[in-house]
């Protein structure tokens, strides 16, 4: 458990490191990126399959680098970082939606992998908020790796209905995630 005062101090430090980085201080920037890496890893371990975590972290580090001029040094650093991390997470979810079918990595659901289990249970909870027909085809196609046609046969839904239900389901998931974040 992170002490709130320590977290606030850390955030102020990150903010001043980013301000120095904007002025061209490479050492402060290197320290900042190195300190952000574990935070980002933890963030994505709770939201993505473990195998996708490092890619997501690198993606955010690159985004931070390219968009560092958008950080306003008069404001806290934490919300800026969290907004970029969340944007990249949603972007990743959307990219996965565009891919027709993608079998998930075998590491997902390994009983001895705590972070993966947390991510999976979060995902299961989100799935439960969908209509049963949407949740069923998302589980079949996106988690278990069935093709659209196989999911259609297994669920008794037509091929086009499977596509529509996946599309609507993922939109609902994205919006649920967005709302949950806003509520936080």
């Amino acid at each position, binding site marked *: 458990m992170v002490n709130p005062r320590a977290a606030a101090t850390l955030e102020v430090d990150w903010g001043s490191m980013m301000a120095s*980085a*904007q*002025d*061209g*201080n*490479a*050492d402060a*920037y*290197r320290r900042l*990126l*190195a300190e952000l*890496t574990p935070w980002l890893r933890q963030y994505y371990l709770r939201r993505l399959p473990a195998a996708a975590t*490092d890619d997501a*972290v*690198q993606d955010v*580090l*690159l*985004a931070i*680098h*390219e*968009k*560092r*001029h*958008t*950080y*306003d*040094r008069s*404001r806290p650093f934490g*919300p*800026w970082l969290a*907004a*970029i991390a*969340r*944007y990249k997470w949603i*972007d990743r979810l959307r990219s996965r939606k565009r891919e027709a079918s993608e079998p998930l990595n075998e590491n997902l659901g390994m009983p001895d992998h705590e972070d993966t289990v947390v991510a999976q249970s979060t995902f299961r909870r989100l799935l439960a908020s969908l209509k049963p027909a949407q949740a069923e085809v998302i589980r079949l196609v996106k988690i278990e790796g069935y093709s659209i046609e196989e999911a259609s046969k297994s669920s008794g839904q037509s091929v086009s209905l499977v596509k529509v239900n996946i599309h609507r389901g993922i939109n609902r998931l994205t919006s649920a995630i967005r709302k949950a974040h806003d509520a936080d």
Partner: protein
Amino acid sequence: MRIESLVERLSADLRPIRPRSILREAAVLFILGLVELAAFLAMGFMRPDMPVAMAAPSFWWKLASTGLIAVLGAGVAIISIDPVRSPRAGLRWMLACVAVIIASGWLIDAAHYGLSDLITRLDWAHGVQCVWKMVALSIPPAIAFTTLIRLGAPTDRAGTALAAGLASAAWGAFVFVFACPSDDPLYIAVWYTVGCGIVTAMSRAAMLKLSRW
């Protein structure tokens, strides 16, 4: 690439950058607006009966309406380029303004013209020309907004693209007001809505695609 080497590479070629400034971006857009308006008038497009037109309430209605939407849209777009700011509340205000504008136009129309000769008043031939001129005048602001959005980091790209599309459309319409020969609220409501609708839809689609980061 390993994360550690990425961190090394990013910090190795670090250069000082100028933090983003909302005021600077607003000033750039304002100057671009003035330049476009001045160039448009200098090319001789101003309507010849301007002093007479300025006496009609509908002239001020269309000028104020398009100007208000352009300013609001530009404000919402610029603010929402920041990753921590959402354009949604601003868009709701813009939609409320559009509703008030249409309702006030209807009141001006009903008070002055009655409801006869609707088709004649629409004046298709001029209307289509107006639409294309508005679309052409919206291109410079649309390019400016696209550049700003690509430089920024909007996290609600659809909302930001919509606000910028609306602002570009209203901006083009605002400049066109100085050349538009019609002060008929029905004509303005229909053809300005068509022109602004086309620009908004096209700009939103293009900016949404180009703003990915």
